[in-house]
């Protein structure tokens, strides 16, 4: 554990050194990240110009859900930035280098691609949540902060598990490039009140690709109860996190065993 912590520190130092080469670009990236997320916020704001409620949820509530979603998403984007895993590690053969080292392969791959600027999104998300918390006149219990941290961690692990599993598909298949953007789009569904979707999509979002657990379900715990009462599922967030990440990691480990190198 201690060894992994010091490794992480070394990778971070490395990251800062490379990053300082393109200093101005750092801020452009932070800004473009925020703009991307701001776009979704603009969407919500414009939509509520035309309707008072969305599936029984008010504007502040939907924005609150979005603010919550931004927190785990920022952490996830910082530590699981492996969008080009297949291309960089499998096709170009860099995975061979990773395997010659004693630390766990996933840990190395994640740290080599670490992307801390994405954390700014988490801060902005937390601020958005705080503002909506105030707007909605919610009561703050001392336990809420603790619950919030657990939910955020659970959500990060759900994300991490799904993307680890997806990246691991590269070990089994030659051209898996199409799947990651697919998931990237499905996650959009999980941010809005799930009751607006039809039964099948709702089931998929809750139990198969549980993106509802990174946004609307845990966030609803803090809000006024709704007709479909999804808040009662909120406590399952950390459990889902553990299960999904466990599955992802298992798929990864099986994949690594099968890996034979690209032979370039």
């Amino acid at each position, binding site marked *: 554990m201690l060894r992994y912590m010091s490794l992480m520190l070394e990778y971070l130092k490395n990251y800062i050194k490379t990053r300082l080469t393109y200093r101005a670009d750092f801020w452009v990236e932070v800004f*473009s*990240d925020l703009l*991307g997320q701001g776009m979704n916020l603009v969407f919500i704001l414009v939509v509520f110009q035309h309707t008072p409620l969305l599936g029984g949820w008010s504007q502040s509530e939907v924005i609150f859900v979005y603010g919550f979603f931004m927190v785990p998403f920022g952490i996830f984007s910082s530590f699981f930035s492996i969008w080009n895993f297949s291309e960089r590690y499998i096709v170009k053969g860099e995975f061979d280098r990773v395997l010659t080292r004693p630390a766990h392969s996933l840990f190395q791959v994640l740290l080599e691609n670490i992307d801390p600027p994405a954390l700014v999104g988490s801060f902005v998300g937390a601020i958005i949540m705080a503002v909506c918390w105030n707007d909605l006149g919610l009561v703050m219990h001392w336990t809420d902060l603790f619950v919030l941290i657990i939910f955020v961690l659970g959500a990060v692990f759900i994300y991490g598990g799904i993307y680890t599993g997806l990246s691991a598909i590269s070990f089994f298949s030659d051209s898996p490039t199409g799947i990651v953007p*697919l998931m990237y789009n499905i996650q959009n569904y999980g941010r809005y009140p799930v009751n607006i*979707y039809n039964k099948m999509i709702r089931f998929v979002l809750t139990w198969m690709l549980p993106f509802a657990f990174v946004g609307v379900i845990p966030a609803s715990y803090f809000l006024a109860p709704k007709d479909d009462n999804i808040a009662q599922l909120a406590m399952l967030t950390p459990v889902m996190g553990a299960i999904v990440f466990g599955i992802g990691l298992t798929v990864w480990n099986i994949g690594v065993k099968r890996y034979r190198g690209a032979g370039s």
Partner: protein
Amino acid sequence: MTRVYIDFIRMRFLMMLAYRVNYYSGIVIYAINIGAYYFLWKAIYGAQETLAGFSLEQMTTYLAISWMARAFYFNNLDRDIANEIRDGSVAIQMIRPYNYLIVKLMQGFGEGLFRFMLFMIPGLAIVCLIFPVKLPTDLTVWATYLGMLVFSFLINSQLNIMTGLFAFFVENNEGLMRMKRVMVDLFSGVIIPIAFFPGWLGSIMTWLPFQAITYLPSAIFTGRTPLSEAGHVFLIQFAWLTVLMIPIVIMWRAARQRLFVQGG
């Protein structure tokens, strides 16, 4: 000379054809996106008949045609150009007896043709089967729309070329490219039709080139804008096409003075 350029279209088209399998997953991704927004808009409409001049049926059609148009005009010219600037191969292209930027545009068009035939058309057919899309019956609407689509492609490519050329001046324009993608999606009207934007924001949009890419043609296609105003739309598109040429020429001239290759 023209024959050389046409060959670039053909070559890119054939290259895309070789990797066509990746595009089948693209159709699924677009269908999923359209689905997400379809349910969202359905919830937004609720019991209301029309919003901002769109009936729900028109809105569904708008979503389908806008996303499918995006499938056609979207290209990675910005990334292409930035990569060639960074690895230095642009220097060789510059001394060849053709115009580098026109070659890029032709390659983009080859990709566009591919996407039109193997992505947009089958995608639209599939989307029409899944969602209640109502296509126009008037053939002149189709013809007009196709003409506008050519301008959509040209204007979007101009924006891409501009973003790509920035690599001459800022070394790493990764963040900038991401920012441009987000802005084009939001301001062109793929995510929200411009008519939904509140007053001041809407009037800013009418002074930006983005609406000419998606919103104006799609509004004609869905019948939100009557066909009699098509001439006006063409005029706006043509004006932007001309105006955007100016910064491109200026940047290209300046770039040739200050090309320096990083690594290479």
